[in-house]
């Protein structure tokens, strides 16, 4: 039998049928919905349809969730109420604002054990690739597709090409999954992995925690890939064991046996193979308006005058929007505020990494720290991390998408510059005319302490980088 990639195995397991034109009808094991899914509920209601599999559909309030006090406006309150009403009408379990399981959809899926290896997982959110960290087939879909999944528990999808990013070498202190992701996106471009499903492989990836693996898979879409995945192993199984929705007893043993067969065969062939040496990666920050505009913090801002003609106009426009000068040292860029949160970097390990830098220090700028879920919040408080943040002068707030997507009222004011652990530095992403620099939680903490973008490594000397 021909050697198969993990993508082949996952695809075969979820494919109901394939048409002659190549479109596959796929079975959806988990469908996660949030406030933004209102268009899809409206579509099925318009047609008089009901939810085909309420038991496989889970709702959560995250995109519009207030992080302090109540909803910021009647429109925001209506978005949350609409989700809760739709969930109730269709018999869907919903992790609402008063549910201790509430949080960002890509944090709570794994946390609850809803995310499991071998499953196919859809959500109307592009960062659904996060769940691939467990060896699941997970991808973001639009509202028409969400309506289709609600009505049929299936989705039409053409199988993507398989791409492997192999990471070897040791990550230096203060360098992590966020830096790895920004490094490959800067190298291949924001559309570099378009049409592909990425499998992250190699000894360095295997050595990562589940939290770090989720960060890596989460950012796949920022390099153009709708899917990211990592082979399940003991790290995966240890994370999942005992989670509320994970199998138990004999089912657990059977599941682990099945999951252990999912990794790509040793001689499987990939359409594209990329190799990265982790030892060469420094802490990375973005300077522009696309995640591909990423450089080591030790570098200088690009000069459009020295860039190839086809890139010069774009660099110039990005620098103009970001208020930066060509050739300026990145570590001289002063910031107005920081944000630690989002489905990319708001899990317990991310908060520990930021706290390791902030402990005993004061932030020179204001900022928000929004844990990825209420469970992460409780755990952080049990570990005393909340006190480190508040003693540093940062606001410790509730769980949700918050200032990453700026839908709940948490925004960066026009012209202000934010060092952010989020996933997109697009124009206006964190609020109209906001300026976002993406980086790891440790790097955001370092920026908070110094008031400008800075290399976190000297700040970690003599401390254990968590």
């Amino acid at each position, binding site marked *: 039998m021909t050697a198969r990639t993990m993508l082949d195995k996952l695809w075969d397991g979820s494919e109901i049928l394939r048409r002659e034109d190549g479109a596959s009808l796929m079975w959806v094991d988990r469908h996660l919905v949030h406030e*933004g899914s209102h268009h899809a509920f409206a579509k099925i209601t318009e047609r008089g349809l009901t939810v085909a599999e309420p038991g496989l559909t889970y709702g959560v309030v995250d995109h519009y969730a207030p992080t302090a006090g109540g909803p910021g406006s009647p429109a925001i309150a209506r978005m949350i109420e609409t989700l809760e009403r739709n969930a109730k009408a269709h018999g869907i379990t919903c992790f609402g604002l008063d549910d201790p399981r509430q949080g960002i959809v890509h944090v709570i899926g794994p946390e609850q054990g809803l995310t499991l290896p071998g499953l196919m997982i859809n959500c109307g959110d592009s960062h659904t690739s996060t769940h691939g960290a467990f060896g699941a087939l997970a991808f973001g879909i639009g509202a028409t597709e969400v309506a289709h999944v609600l009505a049929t528990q299936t989705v039409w999808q053409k199988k993507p090409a398989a791409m492997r990013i192999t990471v070897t070498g040791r990550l230096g202190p203060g360098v992590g999954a966020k830096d790895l992701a920004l490094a490959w996106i800067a190298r291949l471009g924001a559309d570099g992995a378009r049409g592909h499903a990425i499998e992250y492989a190699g000894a360095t990836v295997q050595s990562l925690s589940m939290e770090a693996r989720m960060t890596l898979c989460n950012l796949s879409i920022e390099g153009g890939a709708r899917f990211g995945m990592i082979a399940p192993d003991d790290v995966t199984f240890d994370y999942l064991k005992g989670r509320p929705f994970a199998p138990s007893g004999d089912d657990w043993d059977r599941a682990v046996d099945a999951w252990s067969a999912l990794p790509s065969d040793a001689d499987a062939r990939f359409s594209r193979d990329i190799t990265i040496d982790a030892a060469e990666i420094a802490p990375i920050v973005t300077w522009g308006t696309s995640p591909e505009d990423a450089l080591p913090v030790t570098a200088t801002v690009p000069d459009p005058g020295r860039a190839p003609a086809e890139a010069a106009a774009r660099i110039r426009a990005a620098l103009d929007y970001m208020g930066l000068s060509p050739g300026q040292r990145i570590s001289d860029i002063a910031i107005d505020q920081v944000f630690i949160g989002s489905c990319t970097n708001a899990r317990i390990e991310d908060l520990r990494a930021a706290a390791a830098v902030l402990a005993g220090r004061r932030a020179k700028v204001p900022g928000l720290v929004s844990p990825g879920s209420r469970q992460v919040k409780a755990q952080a408080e049990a570990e005393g991390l909340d006190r480190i943040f508040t003693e540093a002068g940062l606001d410790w707030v509730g769980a949700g998408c918050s200032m990453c997507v700026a839908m709940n009222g948490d925004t960066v004011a*026009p012209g202000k510059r934010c060092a952010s652990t989020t996933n997109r530095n697009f124009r206006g992403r964190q609020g109209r005319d906001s300026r976002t620099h993406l980086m790891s939680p440790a790097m955001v903490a370092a920026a908070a302490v110094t008031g400008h973008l800075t290399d976190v490594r000297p700040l970690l000397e003599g401390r254990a980088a968590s």
Partner: protein
Amino acid sequence: MSGWTTHTGTGVALDRDNIDTDQLIPARFMSTPRSEGYGRFLLHDLRYDAEGRERPEFALNRVTGPSVLIAGRNFGSGSSREAAVYALVDFGIRVVVAPSFGDIFASNAVNNGLLPARVDAAAAAGLAARLAGADATVQVSLEDLTVSLGDLTVPFEIDAVWREKLINGWDDIDLTRTHAGAIAAHRAARARHQPWAIPRGEAAR
């Protein structure tokens, strides 16, 4: 959704790469019901200044009723928000021509009858140069897979599945329901061989 095979309309060029979904429709407008129309939100913060005045120099403000948009690479990258497509469609855009598209955006576009036509970078630049701010009539054929502007005709690429869908205006839900038997059989096999795929017990309540 009704199908189509040819389209003739006014072209407009947006000479930028990476026009992402957050530019196509800023997040703050997304709690609006679709019935109110999304056209006014399209590229809002590029079209209007902070006081809500039209920016006269912006390409979309210089052309009346464009329906074919020619743009740079990685158009529609970012979020899965279908609202980005609604904004284009409600504004009157039927075709976007670019060297590459965000995968999720392209799929959302096809689901709304909007053609994401992929051309090489030189062809996109050639089309944009001919438009150069002036009105021009563009013809697009899903049969020949070509975009024409004056004497310039360039080929475009689109996935065969998507081409069929645009031409036929297929409704996926109706199509899928014809496979109800196969779907039920798959579910039953899943429940038998991977029982953990179907949550049970306390947690599932």
